[in-house]
């Protein structure tokens, strides 16, 4: 997520983008400094979370958690959701659904003709969804990101 230029210039941080930023290896190759770096032939690109975590950038979206019906899964208000719309829903997935006019975060338990939307908090009840409900699975959560500091 960072784009670091050589230590002879100021560090610029670029925002997260769909396409991967061109990561420039941390150590300058020595053209300017005038010495050949022993690391020159071994350089690898810095770890880029866009590359590692986002497998399908075109179908990846983000959401913000509001409420506490998922706290037993350690998902709290304010957490960031990485949502992939291209994934086929699987039984037990954490899914962003659209039900009764709003986006909602639930575990989905898929039976033959029925889907159960399961919260992670004793104070909330599972919801049964049938073909009659106005319901879609909007996307599957691949990562949840919680800010610590």
């Amino acid at each position, binding site marked *: 997520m960072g*784009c670091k230029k050589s230590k002879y210039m100021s560090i610029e941080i*670029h925002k997260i*983008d*769909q*396409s*991967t*930023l*061109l990561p420039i290896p941390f150590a300058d190759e020595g053209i300017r400094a005038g010495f050949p770096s022993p690391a020159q032939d071994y350089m690898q*690109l810095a770890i880029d979370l866009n*590359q590692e975590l986002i497998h*399908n*950038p*075109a*179908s990846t*979206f*983000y*959401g*913000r*958690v*509001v*409420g*506490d*019906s*998922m706290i037993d899964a350690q*998902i709290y*208000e304010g957490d*960031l*959701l990485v949502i992939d*719309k*291209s994934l086929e829903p699987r039984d037990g997935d954490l899914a*962003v659904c*659209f039900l009764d*006019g*709003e*986006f*909602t*975060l639930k575990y989905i338990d898929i039976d033959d003709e029925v889907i159960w939307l399961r*919260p992670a908090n004793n104070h909330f009840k599972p919801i049964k969804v049938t073909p009659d409900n106005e319901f*879609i699975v*909007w996307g599957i959560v691949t990562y949840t990101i919680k800010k610590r500091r």
Partner: protein
Amino acid sequence: MYALVDCNNFYVSCERVFRPDLRDKPVLVLSNNDGCVVALSNECKQLGIHRGVPLYQIQDMIKQHDIAVFSSNYTLYGDMSNRVMQLLTDMSPDIEIYSIDEAFLDLSGFDLIDLESYGRQLSRVVVKSTGIAVGIGVAPTKTLAKIAGRFAKKYPGYKGTCVIDNDEKRLKALKLTDISDVWGIGRRNVTKLKALGIMTAYDLTLRSKSWIQSKLTIVGVRLWLELKGTPCIEREDSRARKSICTSRSFGEMVSTYDELAESVAYFASRGASKLRKQHSVASMITVFIYTNRFREDLPQYTTSQSLKLSSPVSDSVQIVEAALQALRMIFREGYLYKKSGVILQNISSDEAIQLSLFNKKDTKKLNKISQVMDEINRKNGDDTVHLAVQQMDRNNNTANEQAVKWRLKEDYKSARFTTNLKEIIQVNAK
């Protein structure tokens, strides 16, 4: 063969992705300054509203039918368009992005595949990944592909993909296409042609080449040839291209990095020179490599890598460097590669920098400032140059807001769901 991929009601579709509750409801999108209707859903069309209608004229109808109104959110539409185009790029050998919601795919070499199921697969992937539905027309020429695309959208029987792959289908399609719906024939020419008894695309093809030449000039002749099945509309026309793709299949398959790198470097520098030729700069580059999909006995590996360049460039050195960087990220040993390509994207004019008010000498600083301003304008969807930071920040309601008459009116704007972390969807855990 060409495929035209055309998003259905694009602006409306974009808004509906983030408002699934509006799927079957009337929705309309307004032009800049909330002036008039620029896009509308089928439900609105049925109510008699059409594009270009001023907002004030339909306020009553809006209340009466509970129509959802949106200001244009080009930041959102641009990003959604990028996603659709990225998916199409990944699934086709050669893409020409024609507009924000249309792309031509050059399918030469795809003769052996079932074009209809290929089209269905394309649209399935696009709608699943982004929520945007598309109509696909496949035909021997771009003009015919556009016609096929119209049929795909209009008649549900095609299930989203219409293929014109023989003369019988071509003639049938031409007979059912009004001359006003032919790509490239403007309103005045339509009137002229209709007065001469030419009502359908088919009627036009019955005339002689010299007749066409005299009435519609060389442009008309190209169109006429295309309708008859001969491709002749080049990618290189006077318009600056929005993306430049340079790629080729290899005569023989290639397995080493060095050989692949040679091809990629060549395509990158060819692309760079095309870029300079049209006085553009590019800020994104995509490199793709393919194994031979028809050799099922061999391991398959098809992939691409996009890189955003830290500043828009058109010089070959930086572009080739970036292309090779991308190639290094995706190259794998043990495969026999059949094709590679380089796409230069996010193309803009290099004049934007030259026309600046600032001293031309300090181009480095100039580039920097242009970069920042371009970035800010891109985020806000405005082309207006902003002079003060407060006026660019939508959340800061300064006292000056009312006084600034040139600031865009956008009362119904949806959030920038995909480009601004402060504006992403709220997902309820309640």
